[in-house]
């Protein structure tokens, strides 16, 4: 049945177009936004621990709010919010910022768990040695915490990668948008959407397996 | 006489009845590591046998094989004449179906080192669960028997308690009652006092002594409590490297062992 309907000629035609969109948009956004969220997440995590309470709880509130609301609405909100001031803004940049900030809230949680997994003896030893706070963080806590957090960060990055088609909401021509256009043009969607799915699978599955391996390795 | 016949003869001395448990050419390997190699021994019906020996000598594996918690690599185990997991058919070794295994398994109960009480149930519910859902007893019947058993292990008033509210020793006594509620012909005791604080060991052992004195359940015991082993056992088997290196009555085993390794081991633990 599949063979009768699946047109290989269309598939061959669609593949290079989708791959280009994948490399130019999907992958680009994922890489830049994940870097942003890895850095921001750490900033939030340290902030939550070190800031005085009157600054800590608004931060906490902000992070929960961003984490619990949908990316499409956040994309639309920021995009049209910015368009008012800068009509020619590049939607791709908006996408990177929204994805970066959204997933940084998840990564902050992962960092927090990583930091909390460090035994109190490590803090106490640092205090006993009179290490200043910055040195304690940089030399003692973070190296251990990041080691514990690494697989989680990787996993959130994969999750973000699979969310990039949400860029369709702000009219960025990423891979799935292209696949829909292609399908609409040719009156057959099966080829382009199947290829889009396979490209996602081909990129995310090996990465996910790698993260599981990394996690096992880091456990010892 | 072959070793097989020797063990059979000594088992027959202990018990008039037919052998309750037979291990025949039992092999157990974990990957490349052979724990038991061509092991043969019998346990008579109603007999109390203690397995002693250094850790890693295969004692616990024997209990776990009997309880079908481990897969038998080679050989045969018979319970009351019935094959447990594998049978001989036209000279070939055939694995039994799960249903057949389950039938024979019902004759056996086990008490674990870590108690393993079900945390989602009260003490009473722990005990009546299997009698109701496995043996098909009515709730009243199961409760009556459970109360009797709780009285027997000295916890008659703790039926409504939650396992976490009990001490380790109390939990282990509930686990013993739970195993007995299935009316097993054979009970396997796997280091049942090893996880307990020293002051709680006595109560558990007294329950077991009482059980040995008042019932004719076949008992297979792995323990480090040598005094207890001496008190309740009909026979003691000394294991080393997956083999029985000495098989004797407890008074002989503990006062005048013949094997050098046994002497060494007993000197270290006594």
């Amino acid at each position, binding site marked *: 049945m599949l063979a009768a*309907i699946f047109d290989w000629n269309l598939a061959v035609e669609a593949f290079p177009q989708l791959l280009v969109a994948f490399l130019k948009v999907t992958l680009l956004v994922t890489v830049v936004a994940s870097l942003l969220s890895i850095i921001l997440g750490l900033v939030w995590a340290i902030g939550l621990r070190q800031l005085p309470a009157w600054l800590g709880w608004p931060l906490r509130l902000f992070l929960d709010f961003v984490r*619990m609301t949908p990316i499409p609405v956040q994309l639309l909100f920021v995009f049209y919010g910015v368009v008012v001031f800068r009509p020619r803004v590049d939607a791709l940049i908006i996408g990177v910022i929204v994805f970066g900030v959204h997933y940084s809230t998840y990564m902050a949680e992962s960092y927090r*768990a990583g930091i909390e997994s460090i035994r109190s003896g490590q803090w106490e030893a640092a205090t006993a040695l009179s290490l200043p706070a910055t040195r304690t963080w940089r030399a003692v806590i973070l190296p251990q915490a990041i080691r514990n957090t690494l697989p989680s960060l990787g996993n959130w990055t994969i999750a973000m990668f699979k969310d990039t088609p949400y860029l369709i909401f702000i009219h960025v021509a990423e891979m799935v948008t292209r696949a829909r256009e292609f399908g609409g043009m040719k009156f057959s969607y*099966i080829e382009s959407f199947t290829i889009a799915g396979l490209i996602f699978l081909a990129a995310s*599955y090996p990465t996910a397996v790698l993260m599981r391996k990394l996690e096992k390795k880091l456990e010892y | 006489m072959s070793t097989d016949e020797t063990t059979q003869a000594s088992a027959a001395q202990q018990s008039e009845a037919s052998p309750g448990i037979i291990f025949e050419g039992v092999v157990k390997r974990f990957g490349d590591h052979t724990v038991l190699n061509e092991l043969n021994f019998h346990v008579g019906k109603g007999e109390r046998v203690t397995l002693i020996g250094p850790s890693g000598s295969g004692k616990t594996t024997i209990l776990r094989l009997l309880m079908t918690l481990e897969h038998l690599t080679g050989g045969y185990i018979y319970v009351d004449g019935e094959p447990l997991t594998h049978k001989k058919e036209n000279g070939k070794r055939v694995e039994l179906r799960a249903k057949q295994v389950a039938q024979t398994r019902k004759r056996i109960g086990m008490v674990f080192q870590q108690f393993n009480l079900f945390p989602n149930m009260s003490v009473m519910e722990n005990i009546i669960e299997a009698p109701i859902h496995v043996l098909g007893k009515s709730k009243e019947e199961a409760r009556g028997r459970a109360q009797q058993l709780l009285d027997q292990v000295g916890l008659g008033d703790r039926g409504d308690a939650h396992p976490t*509210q009990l001490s380790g020793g109390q939990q282990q006594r509930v686990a013993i009652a739970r195993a007995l509620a299935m009316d097993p012909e054979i009970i396997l005791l796997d280091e049942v006092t090893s996880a307990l604080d020293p002051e709680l060991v006595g109560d558990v052992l007294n329950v077991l002594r009482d059980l040995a004195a008042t019932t004719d359940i076949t008992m297979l015991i792995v323990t480090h409590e040598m005094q207890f082993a001496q008190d309740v056992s009909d026979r003691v088997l000394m294991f080393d490297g997956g083999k029985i290196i000495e098989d004797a009555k407890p008074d002989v085993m503990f006062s005048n062992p013949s094997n050098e390794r046994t002497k060494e081991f007993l000197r270290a633990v006594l």
Partner: protein
Amino acid sequence: MTEFFSDFSTVLPRLISEGLSATVYSFLGGAVLMLIVAVLLGVAMHQGPKWLATLARIVVEIFRGTSLIVQLFWIFYVFPQLFAVDLGSLWSAIVALGLNYGAYGAEVVRGSLNAVPKGQWETTTALSMPWLTKMRRIIWPQAWALMLPGFNNLAVMLVKGTAAVGLVLLNDITFEANQARITNGVWAAFGAALLIYLVIALIVSTLFRWMERRAQHRLGLWVKAASTTKATAEAVA
């Protein structure tokens, strides 16, 4: 500022009356299907014979690996072409959400079954319990308490995932907000939408936390849910 508030108070009821039902139906349908799929696939992966476990694993990896929106489009656009079945917008959304989050949930179920102590499994064997009795009476109640934090996170993600259903032509909150943007302004329209999603997510999350506490209380334990985010990260990757 007063303009914002007047816009906001116009938009909020409008979104609720015109967009809420599509969002809520997608969520409820998706959540029910998610639970069913997660339990079936998770139990199959953990308890099934080799062939079934492998099959379940393949299904899970395909749905985890190919992105919700691709699945949504596939079901909406390709199903009619392939099977001559048009599920329509709402059912396409429900099926896509349920299968996608169900695949993540299967990993949560499998992990929780795996986390039930070995001694509990062995004791059920020692008490000769049949498979169904063992799973239903002993293992599941314990695994359930372990999987609720994971399901909590997934349910919140599912609430957020419903924002995609506008792509298959459902007039949900996000779609209505984007319409309202033109008449009532960006801040009021999307502010109201975010607020509605937040409230739904909080309700769902509170409900799950209540169930979690109840399940843990029944086990007599108060497990720290420290490793939840890590486990969720593994599941959704």
